[in-house]
């Protein structure tokens, strides 16, 4: 597996009036080419902030405080803004929950795609760019006629396809999708997940799929990263994380997810309490106030990252050999 992006000790801080909020706190992980990494966790745990940080697009009062992000060997955090702008869109592209916010309501879809292509590839003629857009959108299951439509004339599912299409038109290596299916109905969502799967196979796309929908991750992701209160709790292959769950938070989260299968029964576990305020997070393991397995050490010291088996790691004292 070829590493595409290596994130090391990344910290992102929002300077708020009440004090600094480390929305991403000392997070490290590797993204491999051609994989779909699902990023999950409760609201406010830092998923979107991490996604924006990968594009160096964290908005003030937030900023990247420390760490490294090696993209194909180059540290993105050391690139001049000009270089970063070229990379953005061209190599790393983003899809949001509500594509309306990234599309200009007064611009036809086709013109938008043509303009985006020509910004990054000025040598391409308008006609060439339009033809490329038409080919792509057809591949995405939308009639090329629709290029003449304005964003509001398309359904939510079509708009999401177009956003992915813009990334593809520029041959992006990495797509960061933040809740891309959250506003879609279940059949349209499933159609879109099928499309993502096909595109990954066809173009060897790499994708970070940010979602609160555990089912979507189980359906599509190769690996899963679980965040809790700004920190990484667990990362591993999707089967390992679901069936050989390590971190007590992951266990609680998975057990609270409703399943449509009748044989899974009618009982749901409920995680007690709520995630902590990031202004004043608990010391030690941030999950300890809610953790059914907390030990005295959990209240005092931050658990180190443990690679429990190759490719499957967690930050939890239960797996610290010296402690155990």
């Amino acid at each position, binding site marked *: 597996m070829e590493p595409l992006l290596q994130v090391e000790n990344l910290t992102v801080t929002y300077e708020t009036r009440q004090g600094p909020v480390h929305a991403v706190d000392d997070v490290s992980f590797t993204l491999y080419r051609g994989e779909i990494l699902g990023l999950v966790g409760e609201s406010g745990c830092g998923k979107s902030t991490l996604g924006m940080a990968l594009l160096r697009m964290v908005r003030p009062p937030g900023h990247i405080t420390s760490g490294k992000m090696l993209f194909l060997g180059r540290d993105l955090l050391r690139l001049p803004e000009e270089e970063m702008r070229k990379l953005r869109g061209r190599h790393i592209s983003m899809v949001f929950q509500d594509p309306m916010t990234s599309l200009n309501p007064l611009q036809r879809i086709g013109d938008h795609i043509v303009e985006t292509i020509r910004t990054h590839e000025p040598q391409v003629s308008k006609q060439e760019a339009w033809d490329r857009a038409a080919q792509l959108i057809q591949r995405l299951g939308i009639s090329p006629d629709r290029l003449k439509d304005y964003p509001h004339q398309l359904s939510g599912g079509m708009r999401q396809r177009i956003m992915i299409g813009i990334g593809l038109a520029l041959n992006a290596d990495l797509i960061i999708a933040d809740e891309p299916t959250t506003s879609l109905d279940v*059949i349209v969502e499933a159609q879109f997940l099928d499309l993502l799967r096909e595109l990954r196979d066809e173009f060897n796309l790499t994708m970070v799929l940010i979602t609160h929908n555990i089912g979507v991750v189980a*359906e599509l992701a190769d690996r899963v990263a679980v965040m809790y209160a700004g920190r990484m709790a667990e990362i591993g292959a999707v089967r390992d994380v679901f069936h050989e769950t390590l971190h007590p938070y992951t266990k609680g989260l998975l057990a609270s*997810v409703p399943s449509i299968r009748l044989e899974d029964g009618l009982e*749901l576990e*409920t995680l007690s309490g709520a995630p902590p305020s990031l202004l004043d997070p608990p010391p030690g393991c941030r999950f300890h106030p809610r953790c059914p397995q907390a030990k005295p050490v959990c209240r005092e010291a931050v658990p180190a990252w443990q690679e429990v088996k190759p490719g499957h790691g967690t930050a939890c004292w239960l797996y610290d050999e010296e402690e155990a």
Partner: protein
Amino acid sequence: MTTNDRQSLVSVRNLKKYFPVGQGLLDKLFNREALAVRAVDGVDFDIYPGETLGLAGESGSGKTTTGRLVLRLLEPTDGTILFAGQDITHLPESDLRPLRRRMQPIFQDPTASLNPRMTIGQAIAHGLRIHHLAENAADERRQVLDILAKVGLTPPEQFIDKYPHQLSGGQRQRAVIARALVLRPDLVVADEPIAMADVSVRAVLLQLMRDLQKEFGLTYLFITHDLATAKYICDRIAVMYLGQIVEIGPLPQVYSNPRHPYTQALLAAVPVPDPDARRTQPLPKGEIPSPIHPPAGCRFHPRCPIAEDVCRREPPPLHPVEGEPEHLVACHLR
């Protein structure tokens, strides 16, 4: 006892709601016929005391409109609605008022449902006053504290004077539930009540709604686009498509033996939280057509993988599934 022997709390027949759509100047000039969104177009169902009937379907299928019609927050275009045996279809507001206490809504967005300038305690007491349910100030406070404790806002003394912005989203929805239940309603129409909450909070709210149903003997109309959530609370489920019910029955029967091709697609599309259970079934093509000009015959026919000629001509009536008399489906071929 089959459901048919029981006296229903709500009985809806041929219920319709058409919303006129704004006509453009050109339409008026050329005298083109007035258009209407057929949000609900001929719906029949009963809700029996103590049960939860789920209303499922994709957005725009008419779930919310149906719920608002049952609550008589909307004037029906056609059909009848009986509540506890009384015809309320066109009951004027003054006659509805005594019934309003008995049918309470819970909506999706608790923030929008609560007045930001009222404390939780004031919001709950407001309903008690309107319906003259408290004997005096002390009794009112006792009832408010009582219901706060019942919905898990404990200790209630700490919550009674809080404003909505001082609560989390999950706590706000508990307050909305408290405000509805303090009136001791018979029917609660819950429209996507947990859709805005976080995964872990959803499980908690769902459990709370189940517990309160038992404790207060409530009847729920539970509106949701999430069929996985529905499994945990609904006794029976109705699946809507373009303003009509395409399948209805006891939830275990509908989920284990879905008969309508649309229900089958909907159930198959729900992602299962298990990577070993990835979907293999194909999906229907395209998206839901406009409810302004719904397809003739069976409304699902343009997307149906097994449609035949008759489907394009005639609307299929709801009829019982073989061997499952309480399970009804509207499909010519099933």
